[in-house]
């Protein structure tokens, strides 16, 4: 049997673009082809992370998360990233998109420049595990260290909640919005070079209880953050405030914790451990 050259004009439905890769791929109506350049790392094969580019057809209203899903589902199933709710609440998919920490599920294609490649990499400062996934444990360890839970020595009225005035509630309203996505902490240049620093997110969550009128252990948290690696490490570069997908005024919150630490009388403490 002899092979004859394929006559494309004789095959209905087969376009030139399919048969001839030299002709550029044309996306369907309304879709644009965007290029994502993703910093990939497979610990089993790679010594160093490498940048890999993918072309994806997206609508302007698609989110970067949709584009990542398209790549994972249609082009390369090994692409690894975290996402849970996909609606900006769970804080799983913080990543560095075009050099800025954002949530992939809250970043629309039309808000970036789709004519240029979009660079995506894992958040910085935390150990890279695979592709866009980092080890969040150091981040959560700092969070736990500030005792982010209500502590009171008195019981609430029997069968009742602890009451709080609207003004007292408003005092720490901004810092209740944190979703622990680590966009702030991993945008902080101090944290990049000094992983011992508590980081903005831990201070935000300490702020949430320090200024809660129902809590009675503000002093303990101020002591914890008066550490060498505590609030004084902050250089007020405002990276955290810019990175926060919830719009929390993080640098302001850190300054309020600094001010609270200065205003209280200093207590000399001897190390126990």
């Amino acid at each position, binding site marked *: 049997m002899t092979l004859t050259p394929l006559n494309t004009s004789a095959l209905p439905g087969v376009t030139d673009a399919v048969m001839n890769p030299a002709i550029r791929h044309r996306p369907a109506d309304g879709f644009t082809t965007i290029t994502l350049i993703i910093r990939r790392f497979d610990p089993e094969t790679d010594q160093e992370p490498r940048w890999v580019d993918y072309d994806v057809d997206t609508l302007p209203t698609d989110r970067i998360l949709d584009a990542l899903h398209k790549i994972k589902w249609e082009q390369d199933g090994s692409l690894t990233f975290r996402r849970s709710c996909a609606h900006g609440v769970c804080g799983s998919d913080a990543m560095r998109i075009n050099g800025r920490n954002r949530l992939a599920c809250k970043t629309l294609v039309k808000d970036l420049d789709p004519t240029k490649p979009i660079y995506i990499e894992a958040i910085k400062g935390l150990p890279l595990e695979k592709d866009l996934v980092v080890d969040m444990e150091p981040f959560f360890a700092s969070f736990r260290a500030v*005792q982010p839970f209500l*502590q*009171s*020595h*008195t*019981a*609430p009225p029997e069968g009742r909640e602890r009451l709080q005035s609207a003004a007292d509630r408003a005092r720490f309203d901004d810092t209740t919005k944190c979703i622990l996505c680590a966009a702030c902490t991993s945008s902080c*240049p*101090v944290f990049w*070079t*000094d992983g011992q620093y508590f980081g903005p997110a831990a201070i935000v969550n300490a702020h949430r209880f320090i200024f809660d009128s129902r809590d009675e*252990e503000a002093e*303990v948290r101020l*002591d*914890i953050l*008066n*550490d*060498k690696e*505590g609030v*004084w*490490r902050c250089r007020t570069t405002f990276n955290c405030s810019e990175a926060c997908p919830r719009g929390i005024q993080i640098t302001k919150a850190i300054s309020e914790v*600094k001010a609270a*630490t*200065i205003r209280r009388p*200093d207590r*000399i*403490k*001897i*190390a*126990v*451990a």
Partner: protein
Amino acid sequence: MATTLPAPRTVGRRRNIEKYGWIYMRASGVVLVVLIFGHLFINLVAGQGVKQIDFAFIAGKYATPFWQVWDGLMLWLALIHGGNGMRTITNDYVSNPTANRLLKGAILVAVVLLILLGTLVITTFDPCPANAAPGTLPTFCSSIGR
């Protein structure tokens, strides 16, 4: 469900100077703005401007306690301010403990040395040294016979 903690965790932490360092940077910064711009104005703008600066001009300034205190304050505040800033940068960027301590040691030595040297100059400065070239001394030196 327990609603209270009978014995909440307490923490003991070593006292550190970071808080005082932070306060010092702000306080000295504010004072230094006044001192430095005052210094620049007096030296470079007022009178004949930059042309007036020579040995006699400096000697004239150091003959008055006002400028001795002004420059002394500027010396101490600025060097400690700068030294503390360098210490902070070292802590930020040098994670190797040996290199960190070496660099901070070098910064400390430089700051202490410069402060001592500067203070020595300000406090022991002789505006009318013997055997100086004629015409280079401040005018008041002639009145004390040099």
